[in-house]
């Protein structure tokens, strides 16, 4: 009798998990729950992305469900990243006036910060003995996830690893950034906004908005520009790194 029940349950579980709707609904359920956790306890450490993806990993591991089974539905959600990247044109367009008024300041500071972060990340991992795969996955990690993932694919990194580095960079920037900028005397709204957006993308922009509307606006601009600059510069930077023997 018990065997029969166990057998039936396993059968039902298998039927459910092999449908694409499983991955989609699992992701949505955990994400909505994680958003509620964040609403109640707002902190960079309770970021919905961190909570929901850890919970899903735990769920899949406990029920012994293969990652590729989950991805049948997961990839339907991932598909929307392309349209989401294109949609980033709208906030950039809305900020076009601010950008054109301070074009030199914004592009120079964002480009320099982006390239510095990329170089230091790659150098540190190289000096501490990381593999080439890790270096390549690390290179685009400062920019917004959809763009970083695409770049990682192009330069030969592992997109999933890159996505983890992106999230961790965002959390680092959001947690350490404001006080770091305060102690270094760089905490004007323009400086804080641009620095957070350049190195900590969307998570940093969320943090910048808590400091003020103006901080948030500059952070949003920096996040978009850093993504564009990295998309154009990363393949050449990677080529340069390989010429000077970093890989």
């Amino acid at each position, binding site marked *: 009798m018990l065997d029969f029940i166990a057998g039936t349950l396993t059968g039902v579980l298998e039927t459910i998990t092999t449908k694409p709707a499983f991955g989609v609904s699992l992701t949505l359920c955990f994400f909505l729950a994680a958003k509620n956790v964040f609403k109640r306890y707002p902190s960079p450490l309770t970021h919905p992305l961190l909570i929901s993806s850890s919970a899903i990993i735990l769920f899949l591991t406990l029920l012994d469900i293969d990652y590729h089974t989950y991805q049948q539905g997961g990839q339907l959600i991932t598909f929307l990243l392309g349209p989401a990247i294109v949609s980033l044109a*709208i906030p950039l367009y809305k900020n076009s006036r601010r950008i054109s008024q301070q074009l030199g300041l914004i592009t120079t500071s964002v480009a320099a910060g982006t390239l510095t972060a990329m170089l230091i990340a790659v150098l540190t991992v190289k000096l501490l003995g990381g593999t080439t795969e890790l270096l390549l996955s690390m290179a685009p990690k400062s920019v917004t996830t959809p763009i970083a993932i695409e770049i990682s694919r192009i330069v030969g990194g592992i997109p999933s690893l890159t996505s983890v580095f992106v999230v961790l960079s965002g959390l680092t920037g959001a947690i350490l950034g404001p006080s770091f900028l305060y102690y270094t005397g760089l905490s004007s709204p323009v400086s804080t906004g641009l620095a957070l957006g350049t190195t900590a993308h969307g998570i940093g922009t969320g943090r910048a908005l808590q400091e003020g509307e103006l901080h948030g606006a500059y952070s949003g601009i920096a996040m978009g520009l850093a993504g564009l600059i990295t998309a154009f510069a990363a393949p050449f930077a990677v080529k340069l790194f390989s010429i000077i023997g970093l890989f």
Partner: protein
Amino acid sequence: MLKGFTLILVFQLTGEVLVRLFNLPIPGPVIGLLLLWLSLVKGWVALIALEEITNLLLDNLVLLFVPIVVGAMVYADVLIEYWLTLSLGIILSTLAGMLVTGMIATHWKRKDKNA
């Protein structure tokens, strides 16, 4: 909504085609972003046709990363083996990038004021 989504997909595909044609090492959707930005600035595309779908996508952007982050479970052994190297790389690079961006932004502002 449907019209906006179609427009977005057409821009994305145009980007992908250009990337393929010119063999560019740049993500197709990024080219789509630039083309859409240009079209908005030039007034070829109206913002109103797009905002419903782009708001939906951007308001829930974080959701779209979840399956990719879950993919890291496959690389758990790499992450555990190199956790210190990776943490240092992430912390140092993030602070260095902030310092450089912040210093240029702050210095530039002073220069503007003096001018």
